[in-house]
């Protein structure tokens, strides 16, 4: 069974199709790099897979179940454009809150563990609004990984990260892949993404223009897929 199965998904804004008959099967344990120009529909697709909006037609299945089902939500970790943590709470309070919401056995302990793994244990009682940008990004990553999800959905995760945050994220992603987790990552940063990716999909104006395994050629020349498969 695929970790993520997108089956004939269309998304309409009014009568305008933002996604047109998208079909993707992401095998478990793989890492899909979702590339495409701005406006191609990457964010729309990711948000539908994560369950934030419903497709107009077609369906999404995560390990065979709809994304909005409670058990499925427990298996999914999402990083969007915002950091999704509360400015007025401390790092520890934020992670403990999400730990509780995800039903972890010992939310506080998991929170402390992940604060350490993202290098934030010293500022655990600091309010997020006092954090630097890099610290906020690392906390966002901690939040997504906290409940050990089997599927990670990341929307342009490397964009605007500082070096330390990039390093942390890459380490965590490699560890996750080593443990057999599945990653779907939309990106403009082809180099970082293609290093980790096992598969590549190109979205062009809401349609899948290319989907296949990552090849050594792509790693050598990241612009290759765009050149070969996008129209104009």
């Amino acid at each position, binding site marked *: 069974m695929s970790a993520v199965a997108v089956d004939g998904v269309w998304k309409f804004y009014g009568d305008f199709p933002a996604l047109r008959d998208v079909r993707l099967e992401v095998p478990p344990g793989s890492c899909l790099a979702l590339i495409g120009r701005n406006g191609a529909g990457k964010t729309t697709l990711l948000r539908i897979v*994560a*369950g*934030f*909006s*419903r497709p107009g037609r077609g369906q999404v299945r995560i390990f065979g179940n709809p994304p*909005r089902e*409670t*058990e499925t*939500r*427990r298996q*999914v970790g*999402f990083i*969007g*454009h*915002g*950091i*999704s*943590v*509360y*400015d*007025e*709470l401390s790092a520890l*309070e934020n992670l403990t*809150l*999400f730990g*509780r*919401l*995800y*039903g972890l056995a010992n939310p506080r302990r998991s929170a402390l563990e992940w604060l350490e793994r993202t290098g934030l244990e010293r500022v655990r009682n600091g309010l997020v609004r006092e954090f630097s940008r890099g610290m906020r990004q690392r906390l966002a990553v901690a*939040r997504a990984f906290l409940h050990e999800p089997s599927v990670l959905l990341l929307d342009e995760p490397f964009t605007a990260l500082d070096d330390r945050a990039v390093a942390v994220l890459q380490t965590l992603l490699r560890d996750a892949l080593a443990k057999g987790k599945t990653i779907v990552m939309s990106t403009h940063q082809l180099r970082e993404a293609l290093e980790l990716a096992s598969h590549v999909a190109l979205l062009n104006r809401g349609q899948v223009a290319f989907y296949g395994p990552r090849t050594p050629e792509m790693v050598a020349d990241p612009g290759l897929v765009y050149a070969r498969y996008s129209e104009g």
Partner: protein
Amino acid sequence: MGFFRQVFVIAVKDLRAEIRTKEAINASFAFALVILLLFSFAFDPSAETTREISGGLLWIVFAFAGALVLNRSFARELPNDCLDALIAAPISGAALFLGKALANFLLVSAVELVSLPVFGIFYNVRWTSQFWELMLVLALGTWALTVIGTIFSALTVNIRLREVMLPMLTYPILVPALLGAMQLTTDLVAGRPIGPDTAAWLKMLIGFDVVYTAVSLVLVETVLVG
């Protein structure tokens, strides 16, 4: 994690955030005081006339000051895209709604419980003669305000002119509840207990609360996810 535990976690989160920043609650307290003050200039607050308008005056204060708290309810999830994280979490939309409604209820009630003594002082009115019945009416009316305000806060969170739309949508719906609460409050402040004619207002308030709580619980997923 059980449903009510989820509700509790959300409510505590909202309350903790609000108590730490005090943005909405301070504005709400201040607004309530200002309205009470302005009305005392508008009318000559001699004892007779005040008794007759007490219900109306108090609920105008509560509704307007309460709107400041209710507006923040889902709006506080917008910075940093926290709303996404809440929707993605394995909690039901109903638990999210109820948790926020509970937090809002407590915050608005706090403003009301401060406004009452201030009202008593400014207008020289003894309002405590039917104290527990007054508290009941306050609770029922505030829940009506809270339920409608919270669900519409979710509805208007991402749209244009949110601060204008929320009162515009909420107050017309609340007309019957506010009407009932005003009638009951005027009577209770004047020292008249709830009798056979006014008991019907109480039943209407309870009915209003029950119906709209149910409708909101059913429709909140649609509002949040579509």
